[in-house]
């Protein structure tokens, strides 16, 4: 089985995100970028499936500007076999990403697509679901455990009430949750090898996908600053304020 894993280049989770002065988005120039942490889990899961003999090849895909190659290299350094970059300057929305992934699925015919449950920049949590829908494939989202059978996979999902187990027929789309695994560190020999692994660059046009944004960003603003609290004299005063000023009880 071949596995396609999508990896997104996002602002590193340690960076304090700043809004651009003109409110058009967040500052990304000269900011440390890394692989979306949920995508690291996706890569790790694919590697474990390969190590267990369930999969033979892992293809890491990223989309966006030229420097997304670095994110693919990280996946290759972790152990993925080859990379594909869909290069575009366009700001990609989840639907566009799903369509591009669909085009790649048709080209590569993987038995499984694993993506992070969401990216920590946009927090959409839509790409995996949209991809499954337009492919007409079953989806196992927010996965915390995978168990493979001959032509199906049992996916343990983290849902509000606890855990839910679904059985999907392969091929399928999986989106990863935090507890699925703990991603490995790239080893030094693999970092060196990653440079020699094949990486292909395509464009949305070559894949026949229109990636024009459907959504217009009106404004990006920082969350309002928290105001200093006040001290109340008694429980009654607190209840009174909660009821009449804050209107929360």
């Amino acid at each position: 089985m071949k596995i396609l894993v999508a990896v997104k280049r996002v602002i590193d989770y340690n960076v304090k995100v700043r809004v651009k002065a003109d409110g058009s988005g967040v500052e990304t120039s000269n900011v440390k970028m890394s692989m979306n942490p949920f995508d690291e889990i996706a890569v790790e899961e694919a590697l474990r499936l390969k190590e267990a003999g369930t999969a033979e090849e892992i293809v890491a895909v990223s989309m966006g500007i030229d420097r997304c190659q670095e994110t693919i290299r990280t996946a290759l350094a972790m152990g993925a076999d080859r990379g594909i970059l869909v290069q575009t300057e366009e700001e990609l929305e989840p639907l566009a990403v799903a369509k591009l992934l669909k085009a790649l699925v048709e080209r590569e015919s993987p038995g499984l697509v694993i993506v992070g449950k969401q990216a920590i920049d946009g927090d959409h949590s839509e790409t995996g679901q949209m991809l499954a829908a337009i492919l007409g494939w079953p989806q196992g989202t927010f996965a915390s455990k995978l168990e493979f059978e001959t032509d199906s996979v049992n996916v343990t999902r983290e849902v509000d009430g606890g855990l839910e187990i679904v059985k999907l027929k392969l091929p399928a789309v999986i989106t990863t949750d935090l507890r699925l695994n703990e991603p490995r560190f790239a080893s030094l020999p693999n970092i060196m090898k990653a440079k020699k692994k094949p990486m292909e660059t395509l464009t949305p046009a070559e894949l026949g996908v229109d990636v024009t944004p459907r959504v217009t960003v009106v404004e990006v603003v920082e969350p309002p600053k928290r105001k200093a609290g006040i001290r109340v004299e008694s429980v009654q005063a607190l209840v009174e304020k909660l009821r009449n000023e804050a209107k929360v009880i």
Partner: protein
Amino acid sequence: MAIYRAPIRDMQFVIHELLDAQSCFAELPGGEEASADIIDSILEEGAKLCESIVFPTNRTGDVEGCRLDDGQVRTPSGFKEAYEALCTGGWMGLACDPEYGGQGLPHTLSVFFEEMLQSSNMSLALYPGLTRGAYVAIRAHGSDEMKRTYLPKLVDGSWTGVMCLTESHAGTDLGMLRTRAVPDGDGSYRVSGTKIFISGGDQDLTENIVHLVLARLPDAPEGVKGISMFLVPKYLVNADGSLGERNTFSCGSIEHKMGIKGASTCVMNYENAVGYLIGEPHKGLQAMFSMMNHERLMVGQEGLSQAEVAYQSAADYARERIQGRALSGVKSPDQPADPIIVHPDVRRMLLTGKACNEAARALLGWVSLQVDIAERHPDAGMREHAEDLVALFTPVIKAYFTDYGNEVCNLSMQVFGGHGYISEWGMEQLVRDSRVAQIYEGANGIHALDLAGRKLSMHEGRLIKRYLKILEDFVAEHRQDKKLDEFIAPLSGAVAALEDATRWLAKARMEDPDEIGAASYDYLRLMALVSFGYMWARSAAIATGKVEGDNTGFYQAKLTTARFFMKRLLPQTTALVATLRAGSRSLMELPAESF
């Protein structure tokens, strides 16, 4: 709590911008592998490993320490797991020969990784650090069979290496050592004697430990010319590479010491232990020196590595700790007090750390690049030039980095006030851990003598002349640049002071040998400060061209810190020249019984 984030951005500045290391590497055979993206990946992945796996073991290592359990040393909990993560990640062999399983990358890169590792846990970093020293010595002097048997295991970290020099009566003066080696008839030797202060002499991280032991053969001449080096493994190695019998030596006790409690410091007793001669008989000290130069630069780096953690922790604390108000008026009106970073004296302490650490990182990077050139460059003239600089700077880096490093740990602890003195904040550990680096691997005073006595006079002063030429050329190149004047002018003055002191020493040594001893420490500090000044001026020259349009504040901070260094630290050179020129008399006059 002490915090640590690997200073990747500053490391990238040094490697890519200050040294343009990639172009230098490209001239070295095998160096073309080290492209910019590989370098960045190594820094980033190395940082992840050090910050998240190694750093958390630092405090537990200090609290638990090593213990001797029925003849076997036990390292603190978590050490073995962290050590194994380093091995399975292939980090041990970063700069080692691919023939023995290494990655063959330039030494310079391993130095930057080493800084992160030492910052994360100086005690733990000692085990692989010493192993690499043993690797260097065996590779340079061992037989082919010895190399085939031992090097792959040292490179992948499944065995460690240690160096065994000191005996209770023979530390600085190794000529007095008494451990003996007797030929066994089958080509091997039997080693007997007791060694002390053996870092990593025993541990439970690996299945075997390779001891490099200095001992005397029966026909050995007296003194340092009668010392040979032997490879003495904890477990003998069978012909097929598997481990055989336990060799007849043991760890008698481990020292209770001030710091680096996670690094075992052992008394080793060799009783007719099987050993193999490395290199030629009676040439052991020279063989050991190929390892010791490497170790000296590494120990110097320990000063920087601890000072980096101390500085980062103190800067973090000073931004958050609110106490009192700024002298110039309230700075945080929405809080009951201002953060202590508003105070000039707190800034003095923090900036001393920042200015010294960044200069030290740049200087060590530059010297490490010379190590690579000296080892690999195809041109003999380039190799010799680089070797000269490495020889000149080895004592400076060992002594000055560990001195300033401990001082910055102390200053950073001071920023914490009373909390700095409380163990759980982690600051006093840094002071204790960094302290040993001023003592071991040759006490700092000895290195000052090495510089002022040996290195200055080597090849009729060629080493220092070459360095002074580099400094003069740099000053001449930038003297006309108005934007750099505030950096070049003070540097130029300090270079002149160094030249003046060098001339004075050359003359004084003719008159009275004690003058060298009396001036050596001041001279070493003078040279270190001038070199830090050189690194800051070079950094400023780069930052001036990039500061405009930079929204991260990185280049502005470089310029501001360079200014602090020139105005507030470099002037110490004036006092050093004055004390140095005061001569030895005021030191030697007082009779011993009057002390």
